[in-house]
Protein backbone atom coordinates (compact mmCIF):
# COMPACT_ATOMS: atom_id res chain seq x y z
CA UNK A 1 0.00 0.00 0.00
CA UNK A 2 1.33 3.34 -1.05
CA UNK A 3 0.43 6.79 0.21
CA UNK A 4 0.70 9.87 -1.94
CA UNK A 5 0.05 13.54 -1.19
CA UNK A 6 -1.32 15.91 -3.81
CA UNK A 7 -0.83 19.61 -3.11
CA UNK A 8 -3.79 21.58 -4.50
CA UNK A 9 -3.53 24.51 -2.07
CA UNK A 10 -4.20 27.78 -3.82
CA UNK A 11 -5.81 26.08 -6.81
CA UNK A 12 -9.36 26.93 -7.87
CA UNK A 13 -11.95 24.68 -9.47
CA UNK A 14 -11.83 22.64 -11.54
CA UNK A 15 -8.06 22.20 -11.21
CA UNK A 16 -8.10 20.16 -7.93
CA UNK A 17 -10.66 17.72 -9.37
CA UNK A 18 -8.79 17.20 -12.64
CA UNK A 19 -5.49 16.77 -10.78
CA UNK A 20 -7.10 14.26 -8.41
CA UNK A 21 -8.52 12.23 -11.29
CA UNK A 22 -5.12 12.14 -13.01
CA UNK A 23 -3.23 11.22 -9.82
CA UNK A 24 -5.63 8.38 -9.01
CA UNK A 25 -5.16 6.87 -12.46
CA UNK A 26 -1.51 6.19 -11.67
CA UNK A 27 -2.23 4.53 -8.31
CA UNK A 28 -2.97 0.86 -7.65
CA UNK A 29 -6.05 -0.47 -5.86
CA UNK A 30 -5.61 -0.03 -2.09
CA UNK A 31 -3.29 2.97 -2.43
CA UNK A 32 -4.21 6.17 -0.65
CA UNK A 33 -4.21 9.67 -2.12
CA UNK A 34 -4.30 12.68 0.20
CA UNK A 35 -5.51 15.80 -1.60
CA UNK A 36 -4.76 19.10 0.18
CA UNK A 37 -7.24 21.84 -0.72
CA UNK A 38 -8.24 25.31 0.47
CA UNK A 39 -11.01 25.98 -2.05
CA UNK A 40 -14.46 25.25 -0.64
CA UNK A 41 -15.95 24.19 -4.02
CA UNK A 42 -13.33 21.47 -4.25
CA UNK A 43 -14.59 20.28 -0.88
CA UNK A 44 -17.82 19.44 -2.65
CA UNK A 45 -16.85 18.24 -6.12
CA UNK A 46 -13.74 16.18 -5.32
CA UNK A 47 -15.36 13.93 -2.64
CA UNK A 48 -18.58 13.75 -4.69
CA UNK A 49 -16.74 12.51 -7.76
CA UNK A 50 -14.54 10.10 -5.78
CA UNK A 51 -17.53 8.55 -3.99
CA UNK A 52 -19.43 8.21 -7.26
CA UNK A 53 -16.39 6.50 -8.78
CA UNK A 54 -16.63 3.98 -5.92
CA UNK A 55 -13.61 4.96 -3.81
CA UNK A 56 -13.51 5.32 -0.03
CA UNK A 57 -13.42 8.97 0.95
CA UNK A 58 -12.77 10.81 4.21
CA UNK A 59 -12.53 14.55 4.76
CA UNK A 60 -10.38 16.09 7.46
CA UNK A 61 -10.40 19.75 8.40
CA UNK A 62 -6.76 20.51 9.11
CA UNK A 63 -7.02 24.28 9.64
CA UNK A 64 -9.36 27.23 9.04
CA UNK A 65 -10.33 26.92 5.38
CA UNK A 66 -7.97 24.04 4.77
CA UNK A 67 -8.91 20.43 4.23
CA UNK A 68 -7.40 17.06 3.38
CA UNK A 69 -9.46 14.68 1.31
CA UNK A 70 -8.26 11.14 1.91
CA UNK A 71 -9.15 8.85 -0.96
CA UNK A 72 -8.50 5.12 -0.91
CA UNK A 73 -8.55 3.72 -4.41
CA UNK A 74 -11.11 0.92 -4.34
CA UNK A 75 -11.09 -0.23 -7.95
Amino acid sequence: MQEQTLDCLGEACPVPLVKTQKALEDLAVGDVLIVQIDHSCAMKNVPEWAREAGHNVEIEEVDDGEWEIVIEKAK
Partner: protein
Amino acid sequence: MLKKLSDAIGKNDYYKIWLKDAWPYVTGAVLLSVFQIGTLAVTGNPWGVSAAFANWGAWIIEAFGGSVEKWYYFSSDGAIAVLERGFLRDPATVRNLGLIAGALFSVLIASAFKIKKIKTKKQVVAAILGGLLMGYGARIGFGCNIGALYSAIGAFSLSGWVFAVFIFAGAIIGSKLLVKVFM
Protein backbone atom coordinates in the same frame (compact mmCIF):
# COMPACT_ATOMS: atom_id res chain seq x y z
CA MET B 1 -14.02 30.01 28.89
CA LEU B 2 -14.20 31.28 25.29
CA LYS B 3 -12.35 28.21 24.12
CA LYS B 4 -14.89 26.01 25.89
CA LEU B 5 -17.77 27.92 24.32
CA SER B 6 -16.35 27.72 20.81
CA ASP B 7 -15.67 24.01 21.26
CA ALA B 8 -19.27 23.49 22.37
CA ILE B 9 -20.61 25.44 19.37
CA GLY B 10 -18.27 23.55 17.05
CA LYS B 11 -19.74 20.24 18.18
CA ASN B 12 -23.36 21.39 17.94
CA ASP B 13 -25.27 19.53 15.21
CA TYR B 14 -27.30 22.56 14.13
CA TYR B 15 -24.19 24.71 13.86
CA LYS B 16 -22.79 22.07 11.53
CA ILE B 17 -25.94 21.79 9.39
CA TRP B 18 -26.84 25.49 9.15
CA LEU B 19 -23.58 27.40 9.42
CA LYS B 20 -20.61 25.12 8.88
CA ASP B 21 -21.40 22.80 5.99
CA ALA B 22 -22.37 24.03 2.52
CA TRP B 23 -26.12 24.09 1.96
CA PRO B 24 -27.57 21.72 -0.65
CA TYR B 25 -27.90 23.11 -4.18
CA VAL B 26 -31.71 23.01 -3.98
CA THR B 27 -31.77 25.16 -0.83
CA GLY B 28 -29.57 27.71 -2.56
CA ALA B 29 -31.71 27.68 -5.70
CA VAL B 30 -34.95 28.20 -3.78
CA LEU B 31 -33.48 31.06 -1.71
CA LEU B 32 -32.04 32.75 -4.80
CA SER B 33 -35.43 32.56 -6.51
CA VAL B 34 -37.24 34.03 -3.53
CA PHE B 35 -34.70 36.86 -3.13
CA GLN B 36 -34.69 37.74 -6.83
CA ILE B 37 -38.49 38.09 -6.73
CA GLY B 38 -38.03 40.40 -3.73
CA THR B 39 -35.38 42.37 -5.62
CA LEU B 40 -37.66 42.84 -8.62
CA ALA B 41 -40.59 43.88 -6.42
CA VAL B 42 -38.62 46.34 -4.29
CA THR B 43 -36.26 47.96 -6.81
CA GLY B 44 -38.33 47.59 -10.00
CA ASN B 45 -35.36 46.00 -11.76
CA PRO B 46 -34.44 42.33 -12.12
CA TRP B 47 -31.37 41.05 -10.29
CA GLY B 48 -28.08 41.92 -11.98
CA VAL B 49 -24.49 42.07 -10.82
CA SER B 50 -22.01 43.29 -13.41
CA ALA B 51 -23.81 46.43 -14.63
CA ALA B 52 -23.06 48.07 -11.28
CA PHE B 53 -19.31 47.52 -11.81
CA ALA B 54 -19.42 49.63 -14.99
CA ASN B 55 -21.06 52.38 -12.93
CA TRP B 56 -18.33 52.02 -10.28
CA GLY B 57 -15.83 52.64 -13.10
CA ALA B 58 -17.73 55.74 -14.18
CA TRP B 59 -17.82 57.07 -10.60
CA ILE B 60 -14.09 56.45 -10.22
CA ILE B 61 -13.42 58.39 -13.42
CA GLU B 62 -15.67 61.21 -12.18
CA ALA B 63 -13.92 61.20 -8.78
CA PHE B 64 -10.67 61.95 -10.60
CA GLY B 65 -12.27 64.82 -12.49
CA GLY B 66 -13.04 62.88 -15.67
CA SER B 67 -16.33 62.65 -17.49
CA VAL B 68 -18.23 59.82 -19.16
CA GLU B 69 -20.91 62.13 -20.60
CA LYS B 70 -19.86 61.42 -24.17
CA TRP B 71 -19.55 57.64 -23.74
CA TYR B 72 -22.24 55.83 -25.71
CA TYR B 73 -22.69 53.28 -22.90
CA PHE B 74 -23.70 55.96 -20.39
CA SER B 75 -25.74 58.10 -22.80
CA SER B 76 -29.23 56.75 -22.04
CA ASP B 77 -31.52 58.67 -19.67
CA GLY B 78 -31.60 55.68 -17.33
CA ALA B 79 -27.81 55.44 -17.13
CA ILE B 80 -27.47 59.20 -16.55
CA ALA B 81 -30.06 59.07 -13.75
CA VAL B 82 -28.26 56.18 -12.00
CA LEU B 83 -24.90 57.97 -12.18
CA GLU B 84 -26.44 61.20 -10.87
CA ARG B 85 -28.06 59.47 -7.88
CA GLY B 86 -24.64 58.24 -6.83
CA PHE B 87 -22.89 55.24 -5.33
CA LEU B 88 -24.96 54.55 -2.22
CA ARG B 89 -28.33 55.24 -3.87
CA ASP B 90 -27.86 52.59 -6.53
CA PRO B 91 -29.66 49.39 -5.44
CA ALA B 92 -27.40 47.18 -7.57
CA THR B 93 -24.30 48.66 -5.93
CA VAL B 94 -25.62 48.20 -2.40
CA ARG B 95 -26.65 44.64 -3.26
CA ASN B 96 -23.16 43.84 -4.56
CA LEU B 97 -21.60 45.23 -1.38
CA GLY B 98 -24.04 43.09 0.61
CA LEU B 99 -23.03 40.07 -1.43
CA ILE B 100 -19.36 40.57 -0.55
CA ALA B 101 -20.17 41.23 3.12
CA GLY B 102 -22.45 38.18 3.22
CA ALA B 103 -19.81 35.94 1.67
CA LEU B 104 -17.28 37.15 4.24
CA PHE B 105 -19.77 36.62 7.08
CA SER B 106 -20.63 33.08 5.98
CA VAL B 107 -17.00 32.03 5.66
CA LEU B 108 -16.08 33.61 9.02
CA ILE B 109 -18.94 31.94 10.86
CA ALA B 110 -17.94 28.59 9.34
CA SER B 111 -14.38 29.40 10.54
CA ALA B 112 -13.11 28.72 7.03
CA PHE B 113 -11.51 32.09 6.30
CA LYS B 114 -8.11 31.85 4.69
CA ILE B 115 -5.98 34.15 2.59
CA LYS B 116 -4.80 31.96 -0.23
CA LYS B 117 -1.27 32.00 -1.49
CA ILE B 118 -0.57 32.75 -5.11
CA LYS B 119 1.18 29.67 -6.40
CA THR B 120 2.35 30.59 -9.86
CA LYS B 121 2.55 33.64 -12.12
CA LYS B 122 0.22 31.78 -14.45
CA GLN B 123 -2.59 32.18 -11.90
CA VAL B 124 -2.08 35.95 -11.82
CA VAL B 125 -2.10 36.26 -15.60
CA ALA B 126 -5.12 33.98 -15.92
CA ALA B 127 -7.06 35.86 -13.23
CA ILE B 128 -6.41 39.29 -14.76
CA LEU B 129 -7.04 38.13 -18.34
CA GLY B 130 -10.16 36.19 -17.28
CA GLY B 131 -11.51 39.12 -15.30
CA LEU B 132 -11.00 41.54 -18.16
CA LEU B 133 -12.61 39.19 -20.68
CA MET B 134 -15.59 38.47 -18.40
CA GLY B 135 -16.11 42.13 -17.57
CA TYR B 136 -15.85 43.25 -21.17
CA GLY B 137 -18.03 40.40 -22.41
CA ALA B 138 -20.69 41.08 -19.79
CA ARG B 139 -20.91 44.72 -20.87
CA ILE B 140 -21.10 44.20 -24.63
CA GLY B 141 -23.52 41.31 -24.00
CA PHE B 142 -25.68 43.63 -21.86
CA GLY B 143 -25.44 41.37 -18.83
CA CYS B 144 -23.53 38.61 -17.11
CA ASN B 145 -24.75 35.15 -16.14
CA ILE B 146 -27.08 36.79 -13.62
CA GLY B 147 -28.72 39.69 -15.47
CA ALA B 148 -28.66 38.26 -18.98
CA LEU B 149 -29.12 34.58 -18.10
CA TYR B 150 -30.78 33.98 -14.75
CA SER B 151 -33.01 37.05 -14.64
CA ALA B 152 -33.81 36.85 -18.35
CA ILE B 153 -34.92 33.22 -18.16
CA GLY B 154 -36.90 34.04 -15.02
CA ALA B 155 -38.71 36.72 -17.01
CA PHE B 156 -39.55 34.23 -19.82
CA SER B 157 -37.26 36.07 -22.23
CA LEU B 158 -35.90 34.12 -25.22
CA SER B 159 -32.66 36.12 -24.97
CA GLY B 160 -31.81 34.27 -21.76
CA TRP B 161 -31.89 30.91 -23.54
CA VAL B 162 -29.74 32.24 -26.41
CA PHE B 163 -27.29 33.52 -23.77
CA ALA B 164 -27.36 30.07 -22.11
CA VAL B 165 -26.33 28.26 -25.31
CA PHE B 166 -23.35 30.55 -25.82
CA ILE B 167 -22.27 30.69 -22.18
CA PHE B 168 -22.13 26.87 -22.14
CA ALA B 169 -20.14 26.83 -25.36
CA GLY B 170 -17.78 29.40 -23.84
CA ALA B 171 -17.50 27.41 -20.62
CA ILE B 172 -16.54 24.25 -22.52
CA ILE B 173 -13.85 26.05 -24.50
CA GLY B 174 -12.67 27.83 -21.35
CA SER B 175 -12.39 24.60 -19.33
CA LYS B 176 -10.38 22.90 -22.10
CA LEU B 177 -8.03 25.88 -22.21
CA LEU B 178 -7.76 25.94 -18.42
CA VAL B 179 -6.85 22.25 -18.24
CA LYS B 180 -4.24 22.76 -20.97
CA VAL B 181 -2.65 25.75 -19.26
CA PHE B 182 -2.76 24.57 -15.65
CA MET B 183 -2.15 20.81 -15.87
